[in-house]
C-alpha cells in the first residue's frame, strides 16, 4: 500500500486536522470528528448537516460553508459515524430552526442517523428531519432490500438544499427541496481499479488489466458486473444510458450533468470522458444546463468515474447558481 499517511488508524483525525488548518472558515470538533462553520450558530437558519464514512473527500467536510452544509461528520474510513457524533453535530448545527440530516442510503448510515435523531429529540427537543439519497441505478430498487445507494446526487443536494437554507426557508421547505433533488437525480459509476482501505492495506478487490467493474459503489462494493475495459465513449454509453432510462430523462429535459472522479483518475481523463457524456446527451436531446466535472465524491484512490444527471427547473437552477463558499465548491462570493 502506497499512501501519503502515517498510521492507518490515524488517517481520519489527521485529515481533519489538515482541513482545519487549511481552511480558516472551518472549525473541527476533534472529539466528535465534526467539521463545522466557524460562524455558527446562525440564528433562524435551518441547520444542514451530513456525514458518513470517510474516504469520499471532499464529501462531506469540503462542502461545509456558506450556502452549503453547516456541519459534516466524519466516520471511520467507509464506516458510517456513530450516533454520538451525529448528535454532537446536530447540536452544533441547530440554531433553533431545526436541522436537516442528509443521509446516504446505506444501512449503517440510516440506522446511526436515526438513533441520533431519536437522541436529539429526547435530549434537546431539536427538530430533525432526514432526507435519504438513493440515486445509484446500478442497484436494483426494491422494498425488499436495502434499496439503492446514495452517491453523486448527495453533492448536488447538499449544494441546492444549502442554498435554500441560506435563503431562510423553513425546515419543511428545505427538506422538500432536498427530496425533489433526490427524486430528480440518478447516477451510475465504474471502477477501473479497486481502492485500498488504509487499515486493510491491500486492494478491496482484484481487477485484471483488461477488466473494469461496472456499477461499482463508492466503498469498493462490487458492482453490477465485471466487463472488459473499454474506450471512454463506450464507458460513457454504459453509464449514461441506464441513468437516462431510469428516471427516465427525455428529449427537452434540462439537466445538471455531474461527471465525478473517484479519486485516482486525473482531470484530463475526466474531461475526455465528459466530452463523451455530453455528446450522448446531445444525441438524446437532453440539454445540459449546468455541469460539474471533478473529484467530488471519491472512493479513496479508486480509478474510475461516475455520472450523475439531475433534472432541473428554474428554481433548482437558481439555487444551484446561488453563492457558495466551501473548500470544494465556491462561487458568487
Amino acid at each position, binding site marked *: 500500500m502506497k499512501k501519503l499517511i502515517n498510521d492507518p488508524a490515524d488517517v481520519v483525525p489527521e485529515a481533519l486536522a489538515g482541513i482545519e488548518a487549511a481552511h480558516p472558515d472551518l472549525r473541527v470538533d476533534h472529539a466528535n470528528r465534526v467539521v463545522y462553520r466557524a460562524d455558527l450558530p446562525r440564528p433562524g437558519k435551518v441547520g444542514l448537516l451530513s456525514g458518513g464514512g470517510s474516504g469520499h473527500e471532499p464529501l462531506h467536510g469540503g462542502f461545509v460553508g456558506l450556502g452549503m452544509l453547516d456541519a459534516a461528520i466524519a466516520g471511520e474510513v467507509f464506516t458510517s459515524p*456513530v*450516533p454520538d457524533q451525529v448528535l454532537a453535530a446536530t447540536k452544533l448545527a441547530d440554531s433553533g430552526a431545526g436541522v436537516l440530516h442528509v443521509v446516504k442510503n446505506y444501512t449503517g448510515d440510516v*440506522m446511526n442517523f436515526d438513533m441520533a435523531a431519536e437522541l436529539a429529540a429526547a435530549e434537546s427537543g431539536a427538530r430533525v428531519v432526514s432526507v435519504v439519497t438513493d440515486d445509484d441505478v446500478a442497484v436494483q430498487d426494491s422494498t425488499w432490500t436495502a434499496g439503492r445507494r446514495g452517491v453523486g446526487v448527495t453533492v448536488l443536494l447538499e449544494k441546492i438544499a444549502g442554498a435554500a437554507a441560506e435563503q431562510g426557508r423553513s425546515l419543511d421547505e428545505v427538506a422538500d427541496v432536498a427530496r425533489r433533488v433526490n427524486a430528480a437525480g440518478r447516477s451510475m459509476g465504474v471502477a477501473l481499479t479497486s481502492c485500498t482501505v488504509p487499515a486493510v492495506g491491500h486492494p478491496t478487490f482484484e481487477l485484471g488489466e483488461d477488466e473494469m467493474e461496472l456499477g461499482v459503489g463508492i466503498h*469498493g462494493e462490487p458492482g453490477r458486473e465485471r466487463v472488459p475495459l473499454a474506450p471512454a465513449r463506450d464507458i460513457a454509453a454504459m453509464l449514461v444510458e441506464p441513468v437516462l432510462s431510469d428516471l427516465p430523462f427525455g428529449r427537452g429535459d434540462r439537466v445538471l450533468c455531474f461527471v465525478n472522479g473517484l479519486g485516482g483518475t486525473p482531470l484530463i481523463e475526466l474531461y475526455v470522458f465528459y466530452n463523451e457524456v455530453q455528446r450522448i446527451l446531445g444525441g438524446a436531446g437532453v440539454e445540459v444546463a449546468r455541469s460539474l466535472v471533478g473529484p467530488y465524491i471519491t472512493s479513496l484512490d479508486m480509478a474510475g468515474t461516475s455520472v450523475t444527471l439531475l433534472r432541473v427547473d428554474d428554481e433548482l437552477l437558481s439555487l444551484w447558481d446561488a453563492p457558495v463558499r466551501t473548500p470544494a465548491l465556491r462561487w458568487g462570493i
Partner: protein
Amino acid sequence: MADTVAGEVSTDDLLAWVRAFARLVEENREALTELDAAIGDADHGANMHRGTTAALAAVDGAPPASPGALAKKVGMTLVSTVGGASGPLYGTFFLRVGTALGDAATATPAEVVAALRAGIEGVVARGRAEAGDKTMVDALTPAVAAAEEALAAGRSWTEALTAAAGAAAAGRDATTAMVARKGRASYLGERSAGHQDPGATSAALLLAAAAETLLGRGAAGST
C-alpha cells in the same frame, strides 16, 4: 469478585463472555474483513475490533453492578464506537439484553436466554432483516432458538449454550448460499450468493464465546 449463586449467571460470567468475544474478534479480524471485502466494504473486522476492544475496556477493571448493567454498558459502547450497520445492531442487541436482565445481581439460564431473545428482537426491529436475508440474524435466531429448545427439553446450561453455538455456526454457514436482501451485500443481488456473510460470522463468534465461557460457571449447578 461478586458473590454468585451456584447455577446462576453472574456479572463476572458476562464479563468473561465479552472478553472471549473480544479475543475471538481480534483473532478473526482479518478474516471478517476479507469476507466483507468480497460482498461489502472491507471494514467489518476493523469495526468489530474497535467496538469489542472499547466495550471490554469500558467494563473491565470496574465491572458494573449487575449482568444487566454490564450488558447495557457494552451495548452503549458498541453503539458509540462501531459505526456502520453492525454498530447499531450489536449495540441494540446488548442494550436489549441488558434491559431484559434488569438490575438483578445474577440471572438464571432461562432469564439469560429470554434476554438474548429480546436482543434479537431489537436487532430485527432496528434492521428489519428476516431469516434468509443473509445477515447476522441468520446466525443469531437459530442460536437462541436452539438454546430455548435445549432448556425447554431440560438439558443443561452447558448443553444449551453448546447447541446455540453450533446452531449459530450452521446458520453462518447457511448464509453462503443466500442472496442478500439487507445491508451492503444486497447491492450485489445474485452476485452476493457464494459468499459467507461477515455479520453472521461475527455473530457465530459471539455464540462461540458464550459457549466457551458462560458455561464454565453456569454449568456447575444447572443440571
